């Protein structure tokens, strides 16, 4: 066990196995269907979840309570001296507020709470890098430096089937949501300044896939990149993107990951996208 423990929340969409291997503690958010409340990534598998969304059910989400963070921190403090807790953008969820509230309940502990300005596997990538650095015995300040640097470099671009879920969840403005209902317009969205912003509008699924691939090549330039393809019940798009990305510079890695229930509740089924980070 390293002396520095890494904590994140379930919106990082890290597979349980990856988290276990790297010793990452995940505090789950909750996904809610009516009166039914499930802990994200723990109590409901994504297959069931997307099936219910596609059947027309509406899911809402809620952040962990400060008490849940406090419990997680207390448990870790028995083994670790320092905690770095890295979370979903404050502009998308109140999770980081809950983490900060928990930290204030433990005034003597060395806990750093970070608003990553990211979400989904982009946050996951950041958390994985921090956990690896912790395992290598890096100091707290070195890890925080790494996190700050990576936060600048990680890029996210994605497409949703319909902007309706984002609109209903209040994650984008109402005017934007009108698009996409005409002419088969596929808005390409990005995460910038911690919020979801329109990047470009393209028409048709194929052009959207091609454009996403182009963006990855542009971002990469001649350098190898780490690329994560994410999908929310859209394996087909992920496979097509994997093919389109086969010519990335040598040394690049391309992996596919699934969008979890809390992020999926806002993005809607069918979402696909890329997370890019230069090596």
């Amino acid at each position, binding site marked *: 066990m390293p002396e520095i423990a890494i904590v994140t929340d379930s919106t990082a969409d890290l597979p349980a196995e990856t988290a276990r291997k790297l010793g990452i503690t995940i505090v789950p958010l909750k996904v809610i269907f009516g009166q039914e409340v499930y802990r994200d990534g723990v109590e409901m598998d994504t297959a069931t979840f997307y099936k219910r969304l596609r059947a027309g059910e509406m899911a809402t989400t809620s952040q962990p309570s400060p008490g849940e963070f406090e419990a997680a921190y207390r448990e870790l403090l028995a083994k670790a001296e320092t905690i770095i807790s890295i979370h979903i953008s404050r502009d998308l969820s109140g999770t980081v507020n809950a983490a900060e509230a928990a930290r204030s309940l433990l005034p003597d502990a060395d806990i750093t709470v970070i608003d990553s300005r990211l979400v989904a596997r982009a946050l996951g990538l950041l958390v994985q890098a921090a956990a690896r650095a912790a395992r290598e015995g890096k100091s707290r300040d070195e890890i925080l430096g790494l996190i700050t640097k990576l936060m600048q470099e990680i890029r996210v671009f994605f497409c949703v089937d319909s902007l309706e879920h984002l609109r209903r969840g209040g994650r984008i*403005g*109402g*005017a934007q949501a*009108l*698009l996409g209902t*005409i*002419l*088969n*317009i596929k808005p390409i969205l990005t995460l910038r300044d911690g919020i979801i912003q*329109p990047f*470009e*509008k*393209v*028409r*048709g*699924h*194929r*052009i959207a896939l*091609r454009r996403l691939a182009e963006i990855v090549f542009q971002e990469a330039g001649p350098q190898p990149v780490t690329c994560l393809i994410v999908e929310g019940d859209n394996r087909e798009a992920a496979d097509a993107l994997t093919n389109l990305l086969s010519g990335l510079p040598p040394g690049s890695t391309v992996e596919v990951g699934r969008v979890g229930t809390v992020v999926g509740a806002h993005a809607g089924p069918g979402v696909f996208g890329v997370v890019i980070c230069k090596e």
Partner: protein
Amino acid sequence: MAIKTIDGALLVRILHGALDWLSRHRQEIDALNVFPVPDGDTGTNMYATLQSAVAAVGDPPPEAISEAAAAAARGALIGARGNSGVILSQIIQGFATALAGKERADVQDIAGALAAGAEYAYRAVNEPVEGTILTVVRDTAQEASAAAGRSRNLLRLLVSVLRTATRSLAQTPELLPVLKEAGVVDAGGRGFTAILEGVLQAAVERELKAEPLLHDPGRRPDHGIPPAPALPETGDEKINFTYCTEFLLKGLNLDAAPLKEELAPHGDSLLVVGEGDVLRVHVHTDHPGTVLEAALKYGSLHDIRVNNMRDQHRQAARQQTVTAVVAVAAGEGFAALFNNLGAAVVPGGQTMNPSAGEIAAAVEKTGASAAIILPNNPNIILTARQVKNLTGREVRVVPTVTMPQGVAALLAFDPRRDALQNLSRMTEAAERIVTAEVTRAVRDAKISELDLKEGDFIALVGEELAASGADLLEVATAAAREIAADKDLLTIYYGAEVEPVLAEDLAGRLAKLLPAVELETQYGGQPHYHFLLAAE
């Protein structure tokens, strides 16, 4: 149908109805929010407040109306959010206070309780402003007392107070100029009428339908969607203080008055409400620290919320247009398309070129400081370039020669960028489109070494003849295959003279012939051209 008295259980059912109705109108109310701070959260705040009130009552509800109302009032106080939420909590507080000790309430009691609610609401605000929720509540309370004299049926009372509230709401822009400028009614007032609507509907146990049963003055009749509030262009001018600061103060025998006095110099929109062991404080200030420190002398602080309102406002203001797009379009389908994608439309095309003056008038009408024109026809590009001499605004022309090119250019428009940056993005996007125009030859002619007979169908790609013949579908199919063979997307815009089934026929054929191309069929309604085919 008549209701003579209300007990605790009925009050709770009514509150649930109000909450449900408010939740349906929350976003619409958010969009109305321009006063006191245009941060677009009035509906959400009122909803959160009422939700907290309803949750506090518990299940099963107390039998006595006094107990149910008191519990709701306490819940509202604890959960109140934002200016409008705090005022709503005071309305409930006054309502509950007037009903103290009562098992059931009749029309006289309810009228008295509404009057107390209005009084509490006014008392909570340091400098009451008319044309807000305060006016609507006061008018409502006055009508309630008049109605209580006319009939003992509570349903009648509810109907007449709602009518008065709606009328009062419609008057708010006359009382508060900032509303009139923005072309909206007061958001808090609208929230209050939404609550009354929900109350009435729950009282008559009518099933809530998504469509409003009642006239909805918050909407403009000519729009399907609620109007976005027009935010002042210079952004920050309506915000006097930067931080919206809210918290609960808990202690023993708290009194609002001295704290209110102490906090008044630190900002505006000050509200200090409650009594006994909990006070809720809301203030707009430049020094949240000072405010918190001052309050700390009276008790402990809870549920502290500090928001930078300039950020919130900027976020909303960012969506305002500074650069507009004006498109020349022929055909109702294309006009609607350009409109829906956010452009102003000047009618015109092949045989009816608009004048520079007409385009300039459309540019002026957008009110934007810069405009980008999409002429969508080779014969209109020069006219469009004249427009800059007729208006003081910045004018750029993307030289689109077909309407499908114009659509592509418009999609590349990014309102966050300036006109010059957009010009190059939009020009590039237009250049990626290959358009084939399918029409009828108007006389015998020779194009590209081919003899054409009058009445033949021809497909033109730019100046070149791509196909010709007597059968419309064959000509269109040949043209589509020529331009779309190695493309991703082909859009079929069918014209005014073409039946939808014919367009579907064409799409069906092309789906087989071009399996790797995505197809999209769209009504363009353009004259002269049976089909405009666009490949990208």
